């Protein structure tokens, strides 16, 4: 595995810069995680973070909206902007020589956006279009509902907002949200690729060192609603989601849980793929994944299947989740380890995935794991350690959300076998 070093720079204004030098690449990538996610939306204004992120891209510094996009295209920036629960996330990949010019543009975008009042209506319409589009994306709709059943508000929120609240947001609201939340405190900039770490840190210090702002306020939470949930929807398939609690990324047992879920879902020889799709032909898509926020973790399970086979699919899914508690086999773990290690090496071919990965590490852990460190953690995972974890943390406390024509019988998810008073490792 090529060796890469990761340097961390902490600036006086609270900003963190992470740099991973990957001299074998031609590209560089940068990710900005600004603590302006939708969890910061005021309770009466869901959608405000999203609309602010939309307005942010409508000109900055000396550049009007079109000039900004033009400048980014001239640099060949393959870019994206997204609002997640915690962050407004901006990222770009580019030929490495373009990095200084790109950083300069993003410095203006984050610190000197124009937020032009004249474009508020256009920005609002863009957000409304995205909200409407979501309604035709059934699996995303389901996954959002699953999060709502698992995490406390506001950690369970999605960024879309509602038609009513989006209509009401004023340019003053946007400006205020920007001032409160676009601050260097807790902002993470990560750079990966064919870059010089020292030069990158000097550029960032020069461009972002004078950025000032308050620390964001503490979040108040309310617990999630209890029980299972069905959403009626005219569709061919019933979307089935099951969530159960697990440990967050920062927990010492995280990789035990990740290993167990990997056996369940990573690869074509995984249990869910074999049992649900290969042997029974019940669905085309089926998976389980560890999901984590900073404070909590869970396992999300998904399958989409036609209405008449939905009950059987749910029952098989639950059987497999419960069976996981009995433990995994050495051969299953060996395959998983090879697969994850291979993926880690292939990640070294992409500056974009490394930039994104180290930023997420810093956010969730307050430190960054190199691929070599991750490799050592994997080496330490054993069948015994995972089975020990599973024996003490059997999958339970399932919450089932379905979306489709008919509600399903969820009693198998609430039998004494499947739920116990032990709420897992949390």
């Amino acid at each position, binding site marked *: 595995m090529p060796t890469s070093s990761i340097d961390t720079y902490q600036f006086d204004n609270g900003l963190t810069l992470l740099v991973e030098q990957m001299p074998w690449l031609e590209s560089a990538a940068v990710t900005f995680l600004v603590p302006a996610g939708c969890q910061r939306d005021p309770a009466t204004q869901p959608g405000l973070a999203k609309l602010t992120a939309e307005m942010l891209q409508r000109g900055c510094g000396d550049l009007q909206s079109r000039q900004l996009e033009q400048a980014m295209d001239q640099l060949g920036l393959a870019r994206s902007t997204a609002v997640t629960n915690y962050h407004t996330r901006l990222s770009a990949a580019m030929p490495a020589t373009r990095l200084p010019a790109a950083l300069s543009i993003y410095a203006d975008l984050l610190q000197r956006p124009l937020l032009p009042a004249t474009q508020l209506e256009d*920005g609002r319409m863009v957000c409304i279009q995205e909200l409407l589009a979501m309604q035709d994306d*059934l699996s995303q709709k389901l996954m959002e509902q699953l999060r709502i059943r698992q995490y406390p508000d506001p950690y369970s929120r999605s960024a879309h907002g509602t038609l009513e609240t989006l209509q009401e947001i004023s340019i003053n609201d946007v400006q205020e949200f920007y001032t409160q939340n676009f601050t260097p405190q807790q902002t993470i900039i990560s750079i990966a690729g064919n870059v010089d770490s020292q030069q990158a840190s000097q550029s960032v210090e020069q461009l972002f060192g004078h950025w000032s702002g308050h620390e964001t306020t503490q979040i108040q939470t309310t617990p999630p609603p209890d029980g299972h949930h069905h959403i009626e929807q005219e569709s061919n398939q019933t979307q089935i989601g099951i969530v159960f609690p697990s440990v967050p990324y920062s927990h010492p047992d995280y990789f035990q849980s990740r290993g167990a879920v990997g056996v369940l879902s990573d690869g074509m020889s995984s249990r869910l793929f074999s049992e649900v799709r290969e042997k029974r032909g019940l669905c085309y898509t089926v998976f389980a994944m560890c999901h984590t926020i900073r404070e909590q973790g869970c396992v999300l399970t998904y399958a989409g299947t036609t209405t008449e086979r939905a009950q059987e699919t749910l029952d098989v899914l639950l059987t497999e989740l419960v069976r996981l508690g009995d433990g995994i086999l050495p051969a299953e773990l060996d395959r998983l380890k090879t697969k994850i290690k291979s*993926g880690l090496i292939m990640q070294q071919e992409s500056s974009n995935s490394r930039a994104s990965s180290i930023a997420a590490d810093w956010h969730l852990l307050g430190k960054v794991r190199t691929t070599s460190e991750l490799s050592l953690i994997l080496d330490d995972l054993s069948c015994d350690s995972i089975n020990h974890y599973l024996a003490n943390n059997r999958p339970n406390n399932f919450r089932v959300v379905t979306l489709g024509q008919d509600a399903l019988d969820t009693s198998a998810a609430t039998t004494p076998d499947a739920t116990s008073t032990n709420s897992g490792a949390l």
Partner: protein
Amino acid sequence: MNDQSGVQSNIEFKRHTLSNGLEFVAECNPDALSTGLAFFVRTGARDESAELSGVSHFLEHMCFKGTPTRSAEDVNRELDEMGSQSNAFTSQEQTVYFCSVLPEHQLSALNLLSDIMRPTLRQSDFDTEKQVILEEIAKYDDQPPYGGHDAALVKHFKSHPLGNSVLGTTQSVSALTQPQMLEYFHRQYSANNLTLAMAGNIDFDRIIEQLEADCSDWTHHDVGRDIDRYSTNPDTDEITNIQKDGAHQQYIIQIVDGPSATDTDRSAGQLMSTIFGDDNNSRLFWDLIDTGKAEYAVLESQEYQGSGIFLGYLCCPPENQQTLLDRYCQLTAELHETGVTQQELDTAQAKVCSHIVLRGERPANRMFNVGSNWIQRGLYETTRESIERIEAVTLRDIQKVLDKYPLSPATTVATGPETEQH
């Protein structure tokens, strides 16, 4: 774009052909961290008759269900044991089986991939997998504009096989039999209709050795495909509306003729569609997306052997369908009247070239590029040559594309909750 030349000094293109016609093309890069390998089969929806609709894609699934020496479980388990990232896809004219592995696993990966190119196609597996295919069709049918897309291709290509659906329909797949698939397999998976494409860190000599050992007994015969140009632009923009219960947004698909995979004006076509209809900083973007008039509005070029199309995708609330279409037509008319500016062309070239460089870093992406270029065009192109091809396009070339391929009138299909024509 001089700084995007691509450090290709160690990169070498090599090829080899087996006596049965199976071709092997490789972009060898000894510095690469991984190895990508893929069998490209020159077969897809366009090679199907009406009663076989969906068989290419169904067969793609069946290839993972076992061989004379491996069960389906063996295939899946071995792919995971070598830590591969693997999958397959079927299009109008290709079926591609691919995997990325660390270099030390390349020989076992080749052994497995070549083995599944000669599947058993057992009746019991056929019956179970048919259910998976029907679920896949049901899944996509819940995702508009899936049905609209297929309907637009049929409307545009009429009875020509390029209008065939890749997945087929619930009816056509339900009616398919195992003997039909077996016959199709023997006809289309002739050794000379397959190409092995590799990219990254490759042990070329040992791969040839193994390829000879594993594949030289594959039978071969002539496999034909009619690739004469087929032009079908309609006379009017008349809309076919397909009601989609449960959908919230209205989806509009427009198709007109465009350059084919081998036409020299395909690069100009690609840049024209980037300038007019890229998802960012294009004319459609500034007029329809940035203003929130549409959820999306893009124009893409799609090239086939012998034919090609430009595909326009629009999405908006149902009540805005006609307003959006009217504005889209105005924008295409303006484009044809005034052409594009040098600044627009420069920007599009910078954008496309940068994406070529970024994508070219991964052997997995190079593998697709090398394989696809070889079976569609019979040529190999380095990253640098791709960039030069894009940079060579002039305003005059764009104008010629606009003159040759009018964007209106277009084959138009709309799907969503709206059924009334305005």
